[in-house]
C-alpha cells in the first residue's frame, strides 16, 4: 500500500522498515522487528505496558507514529539486558518478586531505568511518580517499589562517581 522506508536505531542497531507513516512504533517493534518484549495493554497511553525509551525519554510506543520515530534511538527491554547478563534493575525485580504475570514488567523496568538516570537516589514519592504511568494488573506494586529502591542501591554501587 503506501508503505515508506523509515530508518531508526533500535537497541543500538540501525534498522529500516517499510510501513505506512501512521503505523504505531509499538506494532513496528513487535511485528516488523520481532521485539515482543514490548507489550500492548490499553493502546491509549494509560497503562505503560508498551513503554520504550526514545531519544532518552520514556514514551508510550502505542502513541508514537513511526514517522515521528524516524532517525530516533529506541531502547526496548531487549536492549536492557540478556538472560545471561541481567541489568541491575532486572536483577532487583527478580530478587524482590517485582514480577507476577509479567505483562507490565518490561515497561516497569524501562520506567525504572529512565527514573534512575535522572534521580539515582529517588525518594519513595519519586519512585511512585516515576512509575505512575505503569499499571500492574496483578497489583504487585509494593514489591515493584521495593525492587526500584533496591535497584537504586545497586546502580549507585556500580557507578560510585554518580
Amino acid at each position, binding site marked *: 500500500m503506501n508503505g515508506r522506508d523509515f530508518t531508526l536505531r533500535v537497541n543500538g542497531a540501525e534498522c529500516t522498515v517499510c510501513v505506512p507513516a501512521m*503505523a504505531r512504533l509499538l506494532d513496528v517493534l513487535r511485528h516488523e522487528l520481532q521485539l515482543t518484549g514490548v507489550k500492548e495493554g490499553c493502546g491509549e497511553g494509560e497503562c505503560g505496558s508498551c513503554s520504550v525509551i526514545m531519544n532518552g525519554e520514556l514514551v508510550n510506543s502505542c502513541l508514537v*507514529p513511526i514517522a515521528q520515530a524516524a532517525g530516533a534511538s529506541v531502547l526496548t527491554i531487549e536492549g536492557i539486558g540478556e538472560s545471561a547478563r541481567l541489568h541491575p534493575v532486572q536483577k532487583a525485580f527478580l530478587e524482590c518478586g517485582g514480577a507476577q504475570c509479567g505483562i507490565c514488567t518490561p515497561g516497569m523496568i524501562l520506567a525504572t531505568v529512565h527514573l534512575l538516570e535522572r534521580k539515582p537516589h529517588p525518594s519513595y514519592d519519586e519512585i511512585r511518580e*516515576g512509575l505512575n504511568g505503569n499499571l500492574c494488573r496483578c497489583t504487585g506494586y509494593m514489591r515493584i517499589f521495593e525492587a526500584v529502591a533496591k535497584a537504586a542501591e545497586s546502580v549507585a554501587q556500580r557507578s560510585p562517581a554518580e
Partner: protein
Amino acid sequence: MRSYPADYELVAPGSLETVLRLLSEEPGQWTPIAGGTEIMVLYGAGKLTARKFVSIWNLPELREINEDGESLAIGGGCTFTQLRRHAGIQRHFPLLAQCASWTGSIANQNRGTLAGNLANASPAADSPPALFAYDAEIEIVSVRGTRRIPYTEFHLGYKKTALAADELIRAIHLPKRFHQSFRYARKVGARNAQAISKICMAATGSLRKCRVEEIRIGIGSVAPAPLRASVTEGILLGEKINDVTIAEARRTLLSEMTPIDDIRSTAEYRKLVAANLLEEMLRAFAASETAG
C-alpha cells in the same frame, strides 16, 4: 475496530516554514500532530476521522523557551516535561510547572505539548487555569504572519478556538510580574496520578490594605471551554475578603459556570467543589497579607 495505518497519511516536513506552507496551500486538509497523546488515542480506538496529518513534533522552532527581563516565551511544541524542568518556569511561574506535573504520566508528559493542550481545547485540560492566572498571551503564526491575542480570547466554545485552518500556536508568552503575587492551584481527580480532572483551579492575586487589588482565576471542567472566572473576579476587586464577600463570590461563580454530568463527575458535584475551592483559595488569599 482498530484503524488501518494505510488509510492515513502522515508527513513530517521537518521545518516550521514548510508545515505552514502546507497548511496554507491546502487549508483544512491537514491536521497538525505533535506528541500524539490525543490523536493517537483516537487512532488506536478506530475513531480518528481526519485522514491527513502533518507532524509538528520536535520542530526546533517550537521547542525553545526564551526568557528576558520582562517575560518568558514558551514554544508551542515544548513538552510538559520541559515545563517542569525549566528553572525560569519553576521560579516565576510555579503554578504552570505544577499543572504540568498533573498532566498525565511521565511518559505522557514527555510527549504532550503545551500548544497541543490548548489547541485540543479540552475543557478538562490542566494547563489552561495556570495560563489564565498568569495572564498569558498566545502568539499565532501562519504564512500570513504572526499575531498575538490574550489567552482569554483563544477559546470560543466547546473545542472551538481562535485558530484558523492555516495557523499554529507559535508560543505562549507570560509576563514576569507574578513572583510577589499570592498563588493557588488545586486539582481534584479520582486518584493522584494520571487522572483527568473533575475540577482544576489556579489563581493569582494581590492585596492592598486588605482589599483585592488584582485577582485572576482559571478553572477547568466547569464550562464548554476552560473558564476565566472574570465575573467573579469583578465582584471581588476593591473588596475586603470576609464571610460576606466570600458568599457573594460563591454565588457569582455558580452563575458563571455551566458544568455537565459526564463519566468523571456530575454537574452538582463540580459546582459544589468549585465553590469550595474558590472559598479555600480566598481564605488563603486573605491570610496571605497578614502572613507576608
